[in-house]
């Protein structure tokens, strides 16, 4: 995380479709009592859904998904890590703007949504050897 403060919530989940709902329940259970705006919670929920469902559907050799969340100074920090093959979801260029139905792409909508709903979003490959992990860190401003 960019913050020096340790995240207040860490959920370690087995990779699989259930991880999407498990991560949602864990993060919302942590954030909801903090008095965060409903609109912010919705953004967090969408970003988390995109990142974790992306891993579940497309990640290669992912066994463990770790979700961490923290809240400080009006900012929600989310970190999603996995132990799969290296993959930077932000490496792909922004898709072309939607102009006509005929030309509209049906895939690749999730990561652009993450970019637009967050104040910052970054990817890091951390660790090495059997401990190597993908880490996606995003920051969502409350309000």
């Amino acid at each position, binding site marked *: 995380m960019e913050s020096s403060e340790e995240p207040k919530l860490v959920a370690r989940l087995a990779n699989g479709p259930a991880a999407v*709902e498990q991560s949602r329940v864990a993060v919302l259970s942590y954030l909801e009592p903090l008095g965060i705006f409903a609109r912010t919670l919705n953004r967090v*929920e969408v970003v988390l859904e995109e990142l974790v*469902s992306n891993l579940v559907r497309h990640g290669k050799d992912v066994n463990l998904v770790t979700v961490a969340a923290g809240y400080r100074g009006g900012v929600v920090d989310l970190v999603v890590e996995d132990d799969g093959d290296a993959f930077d979801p932000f490496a792909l260029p922004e898709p072309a703007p*939607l*102009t006509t*139905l005929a030309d*509209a792409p049906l895939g690749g909508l999730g990561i652009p*949504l993450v970019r637009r709903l967050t104040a910052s979003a970054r990817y890091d490959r951390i660790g090495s050897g059997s401990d190597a992990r993908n880490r996606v860190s995003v920051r969502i401003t409350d309000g």
Partner: protein
Amino acid sequence: MEMEFSDVGGVTKAVLNGRMDSLSVGQAETSFIAHIVPKEQPAVVDLTGVSFIASLGIRMLLGTARALDRYGARLVLFGPQADVMEIIETTALTEIIPVVETEAEAVAAAMA
């Protein structure tokens, strides 16, 4: 996600309720498209009861609208809650699919 379909004077009406997340859309997408596209007529989608939408939900609506467009028929969305509307706007879906407040507006736009 629950879905209901009806015909309103030559316009297909779909009412969606619940969460449009990856799990629910995965279960519902094929049925949603099958209830709308083969009729080859305009369609309106009631989003009033949708509490959450993510990219796969957007894709379901976009794919259906695109398939209908091939028949010269329009898909119009109506009544999204504020949080759902923010996501729809963030994806710029409103650039290519009309989103209005009421069913009457939606039917009129779909028939236009």
